């Protein structure tokens, strides 16, 4: 049977590929990978480097390569094997977590770690070693990867696991797609008996109360807090601590309905300003009228509240948004978090979604992984060039002073010296990089050295 993919040349499609933050945007050639054998066959005559990418849901430029070739993996999304006894699922790297859930939930299994959106690929989840609300009980996504296959641009294939090619396993988890193309991986799913989450939301005022709640919730699988970063004085660092466990009461394990809402247009640049965000924050805080709310909730709104509106990032208008996520180790976690929250409040720059969480002690297998024990805070700002970037730099420097680091998957602005101070192991990691593969992020943070 004639196969259209076999004879045709590499795609000439030149398109600005947007990351989720929509900043920056670069032109790049898109080369869809449909089959495991497409790499490195499709890239034989390529210049300008290449980068495997999935759904483009990382916020900054780890999924971009200016004037280069993006190897889009989303069509390489086949399942390879599933063992219903052990929960081990082997699948091609372009499968999304949404597709995994559609498959796994009706069979009584769930992702071992869920990020804030299910529209990321398995390969992307590994390459960014993503984390979720259960970091304190489950570690990062990479902790649940039993093995993966890495294909290098020289055509070599490697099975990587904690025991086989362990150094490439460690470099690839959190390796930002730079060590080779992940063709498939084996993920350890966990059993569930219900779609439901036993949820509890608790209001808090200030970081001390947040830390108390965190300590009390040691045995709760999922915890995360929303924090109001616009309020000062009496309401400084008020928020809602949200916790949940998979319901143990047997229930219907039907698949999720498809999302229907799409954010329909680009909001004008002025739509998100200090006033509108402050009103939103106040409304969100008081939406929970009582100090403590207990509910049984479907996992979709619990894990992926924003996935309900496809392309919600358009809300931030054409200029896009800038994310900032740090982790500060316990030693300075409290003072660092308070100092940074003060700095944000003082700047008057709006942030809608400020998410606060305590990371646990489970070490990640990833050499370059972001999480470590301490407090993590994620903020986003609409981009206002004269204001957002100077604030970002101040916050990054403060993070460094407190012994913390920033998350590459959410970054578009850290400087090379900052990155190299956050991740002193970067030169060791660079030994495992595939010579063909690079990203705009990598070029940016490794320059001048």
């Amino acid at each position, binding site marked *: *049977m004639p196969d259209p993919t076999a004879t045709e040349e590499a795609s000439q499609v030149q398109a600005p590929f947007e990351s989720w933050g929509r900043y920056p945007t670069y032109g790049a050639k898109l080369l*869809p990978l449909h089959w495991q054998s497409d790499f490195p066959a499709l890239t034989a005559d390529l210049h300008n480097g290449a980068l495997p990418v999935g759904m483009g849901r990382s916020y900054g430029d780890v999924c971009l390569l200016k004037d280069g070739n993006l190897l889009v993996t989303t069509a390489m999304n086949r399942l*390879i094997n599933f063992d219903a006894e052990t929960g081990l699922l082997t699948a091609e790297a372009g499968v999304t977590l949404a597709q995994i859930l559609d498959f796994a939930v009706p069979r009584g299994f769930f992702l071992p770690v869920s990020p804030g959106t299910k529209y990321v690929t398995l390969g992307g989840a590994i390459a960014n070693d993503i984390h979720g609300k259960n970091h304190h009980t489950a570690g990062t996504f990479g902790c649940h990867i039993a093995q993966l296959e890495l294909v290098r641009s020289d055509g070599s294939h490697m099975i990587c696991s904690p025991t086989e090619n362990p150094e490439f396993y460690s470099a690839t988890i959190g390796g930002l797609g730079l060590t080779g193309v992940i063709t498939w991986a084996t993920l350890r799913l966990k059993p569930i008996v219900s779609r439901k989450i036993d949820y509890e939301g608790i209001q808090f005022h200030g970081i001390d109360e947040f830390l108390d709640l965190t300590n009390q919730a040691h045995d709760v699988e999922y915890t995360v807090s929303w924090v109001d970063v616009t309020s000062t004085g009496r309401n400084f660092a008020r928020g809602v601590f949200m916790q949940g466990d998979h319901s143990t009461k047997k229930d219907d394990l039907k698949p999720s309905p498809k999302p229907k809402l799409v954010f329909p247009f680009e909001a004008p640049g002025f739509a998100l300003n200090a006033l509108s965000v402050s009103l939103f924050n106040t409304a969100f805080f008081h939406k929970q009228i009582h100090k403590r709310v207990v509910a049984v909730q479907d996992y979709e709104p619990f894990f992926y509240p924003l996935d309900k509106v496809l392309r919600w990032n358009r809300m931030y208008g054409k200029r896009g948004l800038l994310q900032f996520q740090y982790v500060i180790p316990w030693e300075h976690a409290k003072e660092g978090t308070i100092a940074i929250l003060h700095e944000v409040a003082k700047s008057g720059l709006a942030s809608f979604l400020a998410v606060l969480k305590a990371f646990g002690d489970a070490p990640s297998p990833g050499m370059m992984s972001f999480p470590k024990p301490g407090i993590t805070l994620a903020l986003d700002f609409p981009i206002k060039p004269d204001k957002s970037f100077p604030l970002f730099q101040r916050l990054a420097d403060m993070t460094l002073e407190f012994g913390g680091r920033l998350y590459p998957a959410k970054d578009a602005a850290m400087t090379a010296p900052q990155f190299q101070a956050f991740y002193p192991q970067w030169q060791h990691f660079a030994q495992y990089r595939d010579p063909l593969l690079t990203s705009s992020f990598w070029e940016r943070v490794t320059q001048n050295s």
Partner: protein
Amino acid sequence: MSTTPHTTTTPRKILVLGATSGIAEATCRIWAFQGASLFLVARNAEKLAAVAADLKTRGASYVDTAVADLDDTDQHPALLAHAVNSLTGMDIAYLAHGILGDQIEAERDFNTAAQILHTNFVAPVSLLTWLANFCVQRRAGTIAVISSVAGDRGRKSNYLYGSSKAGLSAFLGGLRNRVDREGVTVLTIKPGPVKTAMTANMPKSEKFADVESVAESIVSAIDKRKDILYVPFQWQPIMFIIRNIPERIFKKLNL
């Protein structure tokens, strides 16, 4: 995902020709989810194995495969007989193989043109002859074939591909007219541009239809025993207009 309207306990037996094509693979995933029995034919063994493993994992009750170059019409009777044996019957035959071909090359070189016509028209006619006779004999079965909106009117940008699909559509129309009274359903599927490997090199391919929704429409059209399916549905009125543009105007257009 759509589910089958019939609550049959025995899984449907489906033969898929060109199973590694993007549209076929997406369609098979829905059938696998429904627990169908599948016999898959494609040319590339490695790709076929990847698709078969995926469909098995997704819940197909039975998956068997054969590697074959469907251009070789001599092999068709043995191949189809083997498939029907393996499935122990056949409820649906789904023809999804085809090539886009190189229009520019085909304008210069008749061999290229002949290749497109062979793969997209002659080879399917060979398969359909056998399959239709098999179904007529049993007075049952659905034959679903992927043609194209490009077959509705010849255009300078792809009239070789278009004419091969026009021939196929005309053949299917006649076949339907013959076998409908024998209890056999023939579905002509006319997709517009779909995001698959076949169209990956086309500019604007990101704006093409999603292969998953195309597959859902195909499964539902088969279940409803439809005759002709334009997918996405907007192509039906669009092609109605394009078919009705007077030739003296049409010949001046750049389509």
